[in-house]
């Protein structure tokens, strides 16, 4: 009964995804038509975001739409499946944690910090008001250790105290979050099946490969440290494969040493942004296939949420691009339309 409800819900939500040609129409639309087009697709919130001048509020509105849809999808779920989906949207609160830390490092005022934070409504678990008013990062981290994010933050505090490097902090927080996601996903995978695992594989392998390339060649970290920051065990990028990849001397060599499936997906690609974009597109194609064909409702739910988030971010790119009066071709390139 619950599975049927969730499947029906996801199928109904599927109509909210924007096909490529409609995104393209949005890029070409006249200024007056844009809010109308958005409202017609049930995105009144984004139409408001287009009209006002605060680009950050657009992000907040996207999150608000995602949270509202997730709230509906959560209703029939119980147990581990529910916990997984709740953890999935904890990303937004982890993002708030990072914003709080950065704001405190930069000595920002409380009101400036508050403006950075995403409003998560009923999903909020942190007492942001109290956290914004701490004196320094150390006090902030100590307080965070008494919240639901203790597990994610504990290692980060020690690493930060030793290095005082914000990058280390961010990387440690991200890794801790995704470690938790993989752990939860692996415990659910036998029940849900291959389609769910493949969705996670697309996400985690993309994150791992992009992190590896950035840490290694943009930030110049030594192989051992890069390996430590990656998500292990991954999926197609096994620990053994990652050990080989981190030791490579340039992007080309890394791409040449990838497993066949990933190498095929990345054929003709040779820069880090291209790798990120191509892998994201591959993951989204797979999510679309899961949404159309798979019968397990949680796999379909996750696929829908991935596609919805990506779609909304594309719309944000279009809206921002138009507001900044960027050339239409650049906007098309950004959203792959």
């Amino acid at each position, binding site marked *: 009964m619950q599975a049927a409800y969730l499947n029906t819900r996801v199928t109904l939500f599927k109509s909210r995804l924007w096909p490529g040609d409609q995104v393209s129409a949005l890029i070409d639309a006249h200024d007056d038509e844009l809010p109308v087009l958005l409202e017609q697709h049930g995105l009144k919130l984004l139409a408001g975001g287009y009209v006002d001048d605060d680009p950050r509020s657009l992000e907040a509105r996207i999150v608000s739409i995602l949270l509202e849809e997730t709230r509906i999808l959560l209703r029939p779920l119980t147990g581990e499946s529910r916990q997984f989906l709740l953890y999935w949207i904890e990303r937004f609160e982890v993002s708030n944690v990072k914003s709080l830390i950065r704001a405190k490092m930069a000595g920002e005022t409380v009101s400036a910090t508050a403006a950075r934070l995403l409003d998560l409504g009923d999903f909020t678990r942190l007492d942001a008001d109290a956290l914004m008013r701490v004196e320094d990062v150390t006090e902030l981290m100590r307080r965070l250790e008494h919240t639901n994010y203790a597990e994610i933050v504990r290692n980060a505090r020690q690493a930060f105290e030793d290095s005082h490097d914000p990058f280390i902090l961010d990387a440690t927080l991200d890794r801790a979050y995704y470690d938790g996601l993989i752990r939860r996903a692996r415990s659910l995978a036998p029940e849900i099946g291959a389609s769910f695992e493949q969705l996670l594989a697309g996400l985690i392998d993309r994150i791992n490969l992009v992190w590896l390339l950035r840490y290694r060649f943009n930030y110049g970290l*030594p192989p051992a440290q890069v390996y430590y920051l990656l998500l292990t065990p991954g999926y197609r990028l096994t620990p053994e494969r990652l050990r080989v990849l981190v030791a490579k001397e340039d992007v080309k060599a890394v791409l040449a040493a990838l497993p066949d499936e990933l190498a095929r997906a990345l054929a003709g690609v040779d820069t880090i942004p291209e790798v990120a974009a191509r892998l994201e597109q591959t993951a989204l194609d797979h999510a679309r296939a899961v949404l159309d064909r798979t019968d397990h409702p949680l796999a379909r739910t996750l696929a829908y949420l991935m596609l919805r988030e990506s779609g909304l971010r594309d719309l944000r790119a279009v809206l921002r691009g138009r507001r900044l009066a960027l050339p239409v071709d650049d906007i098309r390139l950004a959203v792959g339309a």
Partner: protein
Amino acid sequence: MLRVELLCLASEVQECALLLARHGGFGPATREEAGSGGRPGEHYRELYLDASTRLDKIMEYCGVHDPAPVQDDAIAPNERELAGIDERLRTIWQACSGCHELELRMAEEKQRLAALRETYGRLSALDVDPARLLRRDGLLNTRLGQIPAVNLKRLGDALSVAGYLLTVFDRAGDQAFVVVAGPRSEDGRVENRLGGLLAQAGWRDLAVPPELRTDPSVAGHFIDEEGRRLEVMAEGHCDLRQHHWQQHAGWLRQARVLLTLARPLAESALLGLSGKGQLAVFSGWVPKRAVGELRSALEARFHGRYLLLAHEPGPDDTGKVPSLLTYPVWLRPFTGLVRSYGVPRYGEFDPALLFAFSYVLLFGAMFGDVGHGAVLLVGALLLRGRFAWLRWVGSAAGLASICFGLLYGSVFGYEDWIVPLWQSPLHDPTRMLALAVASGVGFISVTLLINIYNRLSAGQWADALLDGGGLMGLVLYLAALSGLRGAMTGTGFGMTNGLVASAALAAMAVGLGLKSGGSMGERLVVALVETMETAINLFANTLSFLRVAAFSLNHVALTLAVFTIAAGLATAGHGIAIVLGNVVIVVLEGGIVAIQALRLMYYEGFSRFFAGDGVEFRPLSLAVNNNLGVKT
């Protein structure tokens, strides 16, 4: 309740806010209601929140919780003074915070040293000289240290990428003591190969005294020395708590008073304060009877340097006017259950009294037993702590149960111990069911009357007359019931009843048709469907009251079941079965009946006339009432 705008000089805004808080009759409007204009108290509020957060942390850290009495003539700090208070509190908290952080680190270090003492013991038993192992001129780059055990595998794998080996030689709690060894790089620096890897894994270097191998007792001395060093370091930093608290105590108490005085303006700044240039405007609500008194207080303090405008709420204020809710002491325990449904709108009927009376009555009718009621009464009187608020509600329910027990003649299910004042439910179930339906008819009629009153108060005449919950609904309900009664007693439905009910139905349909939008066809469909739904609901809700009789019968049936089980057992078993059976009845059935009574109140009662979307009047006050939009 009157809508007021109080204009004052911006330079006197904090005094004005303080006066309003001391008066206790001014409730700030919401930000949307306060209108446009600058926010003169915005910075003041930020300063207040920063300062009060710091003060709370300091007081918490110093373990001081004594209240700060506020003198009647004390004045609120201005923005400059508040900034000064905040700055001084910042300095004190930084000292406290540093000290607190040091204490935490010291606790961690003490744990570490305790673990280290054992580790050194094992290390000295090894046939290895750790001092030589760590020499900087060896072929190997070796480090001794500890890391959280949870990071062992990941660190070991990562180190192997750089050709390093990690070996665990001891564990203590969640920490692992390890040796890391690998080829020395040309300049001898580990960092070249590992970067910030060790720091990221939570690495702590293990200090090894050079004499450890030759004289194992040196480890003990070393650890004692370290411990003493930590104590001295902590003492040096903890002057505030241990030595200077007395020096700051007086000022901190004074700061607490000043922040209490600053609170009203901070609170107003979040809600109903706007302004421009030299003027500030407080927007809000004042009970009618308090306006004169407020005007006198303002005149006495500001001698004409203010303007107080008060007027009746306008049409735009519908739904925004706060409700002033005051209750006698005996009714207050019940109001929590009403609030859990919502707050009545301004001018609406407040259902608290009706709720208390009906709830207790329904509970007693469904759970009528002198013995069980007495158990409930005693149990409720014994409630303490966070359940104390249920004491009076439980006692009232217990008393109602005793009263109905006397009517039913039931004591712990025994119906031959006392003579019933009326009758046992099981002796005439049909009569019980009829009475339950009659009570439902009475209850629903009252709720419809209340709804008519509420609609008329809100000026919604059409709804009051034509809505299914209004006059026509009531007419339909009573006419149809009268007709049904006639049909059941053999006198027939009756022409008059039929005509009246039909006319009421038609009027309701017209009302719904007029209210709904769309084409004529849509209006007809809406009118037809919703009229039918309203009529069906009225009767379904009435039948819902059958549960009152059903539960009173159920109560008797349960006790009979207990007696039947007990009758089949020997003396001891019989007693145990009777006692356990009664415990089950009180706990299980008592709980179910409490929920059913609440359900009847909420769904058959409140939903008919009570939207619960009102706003409670919360006046500015010197007491903390959390209107500041921060989680406390």
